[in-house]
Structures are given as structure tokens and as C-alpha cells.
């Protein structure tokens, strides 16, 4: 079975609780808080005001330029207020609070019926961009941008990421089991939009039902490949390496090796956007963890407070930590009012968490062995700790995708990813300073 060559770790997959639970719709909440910044790139520009009446699927935030995304209302109702709130990443941004009138009135033209086979690549991209579709794997990259490769970098292979290497999360697995037709439909649309000659879906071997379901739906040209279970197999560059043998050079994108990668959830969203004019207003996710009484796979309206979702699934009062995302790369959240956004792939509530040791580096080298990029965390961490003047940019700090494999194995319990983040801040600050100095006469 194929796998990526360098590094990797094997955390326990913790998927038994939710792998066989079918996807259910989450009941629409009383009100939703929809942030303008749910995606990679510039925040959307808010086009509604307090008191406005909005319909389900109506545009409430216009994309600010190409590296941005449209934002739509997930309910019909009235805008209560516009406020500055925190996203799960901890950054403040404009948020539209809408009171749900529970009438489910759709915006004009939504939903519709379209035949994607009759649409040109440009029309497909326009439909995806209008719908505000972004990467559903967590990075939330505007999907329309990924569907328009530059002219000098044609794409020959379209890959679907059905790996879901994060422990606890099973939503991609369920999408592949229950909605394989829509996922494969999404892949076919992607292939048409970028003009790819080969289409592959990568699935880890711990998901045999998903593999079978996708094979049945694929038929013929689309290849379904089974991969070894190893974290972070779902990371873009690692997936490309495993499925095609190609290596994306540091600082470059998949376009540079003729590949485009989308998450299976994104393919599902693209299918809905193109064939039904459906904007991205709801998000499939997994609710799990040892502090959740009734774990589930749900489709949740964007803007629903995380607290409501957790309450619906039952929270053990002995909970210690709540995560948005998976346990390796997810973000711990402190406020239950934080909304579910386009990039929220999972909500985890944990009772048992690792001890906070945080000792000095013992130079064992495990972090270097497991790093998919060949190991940079140890030196960065020591330099940051010492307050040393180091050129982090030259040490390739920006290549680090913060997968967490290094922190996972460190016997001294060092917060390596946190140190790397600090190193990135230093490098960015230094870069900006240098740029300003160049400008001075």
C-alpha cells in the first residue's frame, strides 16, 4: 500500500464511537453568528445592516478580491446586530448575528437544478465562487481559486482527499459511505473545471466501507486508492507524494507539479453549488470525545454556537478541553458562543488530557524522525527559548504546516508547535522590517 516517504506518526485513531453513526441534520438554532472571515485570505465585506431581513442562502458578505470568499446567511430571519467576535482561531472579525424566524424561506434562485455536463469550465468556476465554497478540510482555501490553475501550470491530476487522518473525526468517512454519488459528482466537476486527465481518490485503509462505497460510485475512469494509515497522510503534499510520487518543492504549491487536491467535503459542497445553486451554508462535522455522551456526525448550519451543538450531544461536566477540529491540529476554544464556521470539521470535548510537562530539550531527535519535512522544530524551539537572533526564514520555518507530529512524540512534553508559531511571527516581523528598511532612502 502506498504512503508518503518521510516521517509520520501513528496516534490511536479513536474513530470507533462515530464511524458507524449515519449523518443527521442538526436542528436549526435560535440565532446564528456568521463571521466575515471564515476562510484563508481577506475577510468578506459585510453588505447587510442591523434590522435587515434576510433569506436562507442570501449573500450577506461579498468577497474582497480574488483571495476571499462570499458569505451567505444560513437561516431566514432578521439581522439583530453586527459585532466584533472571535473566530475559533482567536482572531476578532465582523460577525453578523441573525435571529432565525424558523420559516426556512429560501433566497431567490436557491435551490435550482443545473446540468453540470452542459456547463463550461468558466461557468463551473463562477458557480463555485458565487456559492462561497472553501476547502472543507480545515484550511478553508477559496475553492474557486484552486479551480483556476495559472496558464503556465496546467493540471493533469485531480486528487480527492478522503484520508481523514485526524483521530476522532469520521465525517469524511460517512460522506463517502452515504453520499458517494455526490462526492464522485463533485470530483467529476473538478476534473472538467481544471481539465485534468487523471482523477484519484485517496482513502486510508481504516475505512474499508468508504473504499467500497466509493469504488461502486466511481465506475471506470476514477481511481480509488487505499493508503497506509499514518498521520499526516491527509496533508496535501504528503498525499500528492503518496499517490503520484511527485514532490512539491518547499514554498511551492500543488499547481507547480500539475496537481490539484480537494477534500471530499469540498467536492460534496462543489457538487451542491454547481448542480443546485446551493451556497455554502451548512457544514458536515463530527462531534466526539470522551466527554460527549451522544457522539454524532451532523450537518450543522454555519453560525450555530458550538455550545448548542455540544449541548445537543450531551456534555459531561468533568470536561477539561473543547477543541474545534481534530486533536492534532485543532484549536482549543474557551467560549461556547464561538460559532461553527466553514472550516469546522469537528468538535471534540475531552475529559482526559495529557499532562503539562514542558521540560528542557533532551536532544533525543524523535521530532526530527517524525517530521514530514525532515525536522525543524527542535532548533527553532531552542532558539526561541534562548531569545537568540536566528534567521528563521532561512531555516524554512514557513514550510512547517504545524501538523503536530513533533509535539506528539516529544518525551519532554515541549510545546514545539507553539515555538514554531513564535518563530514564524519573528520571521514575518523581520521580513516586514527588512522590507521597510529597503524602502528608506
Amino acid at each position, binding site marked *: 500500500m502506498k504512503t508518503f516517504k518521510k516521517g509520520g506518526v501513528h496516534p490511536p485513531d479513536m474513530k470507533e464511537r462515530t464511524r458507524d453513526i449515519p449523518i443527521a441534520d442538526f436542528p436549526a438554532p435560535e440565532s446564528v453568528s456568521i463571521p466575515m472571515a471564515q476562510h484563508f485570505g481577506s475577510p468578506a465585506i459585510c453588505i447587510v445592516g442591523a434590522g435587515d431581513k434576510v433569506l436562507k442562502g442570501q449573500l450577506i458578505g461579498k468577497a474582497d478580491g480574488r483571495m476571499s470568499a462570499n458569505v451567505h446567511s444560513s437561516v431566514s430571519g432578521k439581522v439583530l446586530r453586527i459585532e466584533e467576535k*472571535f473566530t475559533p*482561531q*482567536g482572531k476578532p472579525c465582523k460577525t453578523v448575528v441573525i435571529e432565525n424566524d424558523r420559516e426556512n424561506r429560501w433566497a431567490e434562485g436557491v435551490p435550482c437544478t443545473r446540468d453540470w455536463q452542459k456547463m463550461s469550465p468558466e461557468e463551473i468556476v463562477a458557480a463555485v465562487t458565487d456559492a462561497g465554497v472553501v476547502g472543507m478540510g480545515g484550511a478553508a482555501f477559496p475553492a474557486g481559486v484552486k479551480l483556476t490553475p495559472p496558464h503556465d501550470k496546467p493540471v493533469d491530476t485531480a486528487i480527492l482527499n478522503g484520508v481523514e487522518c485526524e483521530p476522532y473525526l469520521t465525517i469524511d468517512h460517512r460522506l463517502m459511505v452515504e453520499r458517494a454519488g455526490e462526492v464522485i459528482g463533485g470530483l467529476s466537476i473538478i476534473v472538467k473545471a481544471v481539465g485534468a486527465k487523471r482523477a484519484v481518490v485517496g482513502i486510508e485503509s481504516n475505512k474499508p466501507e468508504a473504499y467500497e462505497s466509493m469504488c461502486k460510485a466511481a465506475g471506470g475512469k476514477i481511481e480509488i486508492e487505499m493508503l497506509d494509515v499514518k498521520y499526516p497522510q491527509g496533508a496535501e503534499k504528503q498525499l500528492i507524494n503518496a499517490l503520484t510520487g511527485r514532490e512539491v518543492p518547499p514554498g511551492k504549491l500543488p499547481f507547480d507539479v500539475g496537481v490539484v487536491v480537494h477534500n471530499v467535503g469540498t467536492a460534496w459542497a462543489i457538487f451542491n453549488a454547481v448542480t443546485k445553486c446551493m451556497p455554502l451554508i451548512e457544514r458536515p462535522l463530527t462531534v466526539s470525545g470522551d466527554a460527549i455522551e451522544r457522539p454524532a456526525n451532523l450537518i450543522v448550519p454555519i453560525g450555530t454556537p458550538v455550545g448548542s451543538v455540544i449541548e445537543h450531544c450531551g456534555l459531561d461536566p468533568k470536561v477539561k478541553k473543547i477543541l474545534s477540529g481534530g486533536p492534532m491540529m485543532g484549536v*482549543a476554544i*474557551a*467560549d461556547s458562543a464561538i460559532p461553527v464556521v466553514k472550516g469546522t470539521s469537528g468538535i471534540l470535548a475531552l475529559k482526559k488530557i495529557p499532562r*503539562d510537562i*514542558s521540560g528542557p530539550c533532551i536532544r533525543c531527535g524523535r521530532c526530527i524522525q517524525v517530521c514530514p519535512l525532515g525536522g525543524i522544530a527542535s532548533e527553532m524551539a531552542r532558539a526561541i527559548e534562548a531569545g537568540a537572533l536566528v534567521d528563521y526564514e532561512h531555516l524554512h520555518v514557513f514550510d512547517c504546516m504545524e501538523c503536530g507530529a513533533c509535539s506528539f512524540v516529544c518525551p519532554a512534553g515541549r*510545546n514545539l508547535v*507553539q*515555538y514554531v*508559531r*513564535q518563530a514564524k*511571527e519573528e520571521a514575518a516581523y523581520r521580513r516586514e522590517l527588512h522590507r521597510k528598511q529597503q524602502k528608506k532612502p
Partner: protein
Amino acid sequence: MLPAIIILGSLGLLFGAGLYIASRVFHVNIDPRIERVESALPGANCGACGLAGCGGFARAIVHGSADVTGCIPGGESIAHLIADIMGVKAKEIDKHVAVLHCGGRDVANRFEYVGIRTCNAATLFQGGPKACLYGCIGFGDCAIACPFGAITMVDDFPVVDETKCTSCGKCVDACPKDLYDLRSFKKLVHVACRSHDTGKVTRSVCKVGCIACKKCEIVCQFDAIHVEDNLAVMDYEKCTSCGKCVAECPTNTILNFREERKAKGLWPVKTVAHSSPL
């Protein structure tokens, strides 16, 4: 025996002559004032002058590219010493001191923070664990940065010892919330808050945070303090340190340093009688 003495002796004379010639031919004229200035400096190599350590500053003084008052930690006494060495008159120095614009010792935590215990690391995570996102996190990056030991952490809150502070500026750089500023020692009144949250929000997280009530702005006779974007801001050009706003402020956000400085013998400021050069 004799040949050995002759050979070694001649070699010795030869090398000695060579060294003498080299010391004359390759001699570099170093202005002797550089060494005198350098030995007059505090020797902390803190970089507050903006140059490469005390040696760099001494060279710049003698070459004329730096002013004799450039050593901030050295203050008046050092400026006068250097001025005497260089044979010039030092202009009057406006002594500065680091002031912490936050009084949030008792602000609660929004969450239990588990991670690297430095302010700079904690602030990257959702703005830090404190309920006030503008205020002091309390992990002591400033205390660690101070080369003069002027900042100590008392119950996880920094305290500046004005007798030790040389206003080198390292704490200003270290604080990720930008809470420190170097203020003229002549100014006694300071707003100890940097929060732009509305009065209601600030009050819910901090007993001494600015609630933007504007009482200070109304009572000031010198037009020196104004509330901008939910925060009282001092115009130091106009402030006379009269202290009226301090008395009016209902939340004790504005502080008067007069009594504390008097108690430590720092106020009123005495000019240093300078001695002749070494």
C-alpha cells in the same frame, strides 16, 4: 653550549627587531579619548544608544556621530563625564523612566492556559488567557528583558523600580501588548489603562479599567486629557501634573506618581554636580 646561546640570542634579537619594526610600520592611531570615554560608560552593552554596545558608542562619540547625552542609562552623571573628556558642554537631559500603562493586577483568566509561559507566546493564542485582551498577561517578559533588574513580578504583575530604571527601552520592546512607554520623569500623572473596550465591557473584567466616563476630560483645565475610542489619553505636552483628573477618576485608572517618588527621594529632581574627568 656557546653556539646555542649565540643562535638563540640572535634569533631573539632578530624577532625583537622585527616586532619593533612592525609596531612602528603597522601602528594604528587610536584616539586615546575612545578608551577614556568607554571606561566612563556603565558597560551594560544594553544598546539603548542605538549603537553596538558601549565600545560602539564610545567610537561614535569621538568621531562626532553621537551626542554626549546619548547614553540613556548613564543619565546626567555620565553625560557630564563624557562632556568633560571631550571638552564640550552637555545639554540638559530630560530624564525618562518606563511607565506601565496597565493596572490590571486582579483581572481574571478567561481560560486555563497550558503552554509556553511567556507573554509573547501566550498572546499568540487567542490574545492570551486574561479576560481583558488589552492588558498585562503577567508572565514577566518585561522583567526578563530588563538588563538593570528594575522590573520585578509581584503576584504575577510587574512593578517598575524607578531608582533602577535607566529608560533603556528593552521592556517597551518585550511587551506584546505595548503597555510600556518611556515617559519624562517630570510628568507625574499617567493613565494606567490601554483598553479600547466599551466602559461596560471593561468594567466587567477589571475594577481599575478606563470606562470612558470623560470626567477627567471635563475637569482638566489644561485640555490635556481626552477620551478617544473608549480610552482616556494624556497629552503630555499640555499636562502640568496637577492631579485633578486623578482625584476625579471614579475607577482609579489614572495614577499620580508624586507621593511614591517623594518617598523614594526621587522627587523633586536634583541636578547632579559633575566632577572633573578621570
